[in-house]
């Protein structure tokens, strides 16, 4: 079980994701958007969203929250099985590296306009 700061991070980002994800998913729903998934996968619509500063901000916040949430969760699980300080340092470095690459890779299509 993750402790202290890690658990608070998981709870805070989790609550944020619950709200943002509903907005993200509703864009692809046939209930709310004519053509639902298909409309929103069209190049013009994706580009229009990515060219909008508000949507860019929304997606960067969502991406950051989801990555931070998953990072904290996986780290919490890994810490249960790796108890040595050296092993935990290695896990920290590895996870930070992987998640940073994922963040950069995720942010680029958002800010590329």
């Amino acid at each position, binding site marked *: 079980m993750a402790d202290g700061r890690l*658990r608070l991070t998981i*709870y805070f980002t*989790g*609550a944020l*994701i*619950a709200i943002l*994800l509903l907005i993200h*998913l509703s864009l*692809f*729903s*046939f*209930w709310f958007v004519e053509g*639902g*998934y298909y409309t929103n*996968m069209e*190049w013009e619509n*994706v*580009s229009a969203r*990515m060219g909008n500063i508000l949507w860019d901000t929304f997606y960067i916040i969502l*991406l950051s929250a*989801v*990555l931070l949430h*998953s990072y904290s*969760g*996986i780290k919490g*699980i890994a810490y249960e*099985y790796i*108890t040595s300080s050296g092993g935990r340092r290695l896990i920290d470095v590895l996870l930070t590296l992987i998640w940073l690459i*994922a963040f950069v*890779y*995720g942010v*680029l*299509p958002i800010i*590329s306009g």
Partner: protein
Amino acid sequence: MGEKEGRRGILGWIFPITNLERLLYTLHRITGIGLTLYLFIHIYETSMRMYGYETWTATAEFLENPLFHFGLLLVVLAALFHGANGIRLILQELGLIAPKPTQPVYPYRKYHRDRKIWMTTILMLILGAGVAVFALRDFLILLGVM
């Protein structure tokens, strides 16, 4: 007692299987790991937009098949469970649905924590199932059933 004595390791995720909270805990972890894997795939898939119209359209066409749509349905169901159970955990942590444990004082009263957890779990299941039914129509359309 040695440091590792009494530890069940990964088996501790499952046993005792009859314990509701343990079951929810295990499902929460499994869905969390699954969603993390999906997240990386989703980031990769979305990054295809950087390579222009042709690549994006090819990616969208590649994903346009019943297998991927069914996979997406599983991802949404996993996210619903993870989210509903996560809200339950937050409410529990904040002491909103179950009082924080205190020292028992005589005369002892029956502790209703379990009942409250059950009630909240059922409430969360209903909430999750409600959203799942709501989302089902979308997937029936995607799978070409509707």
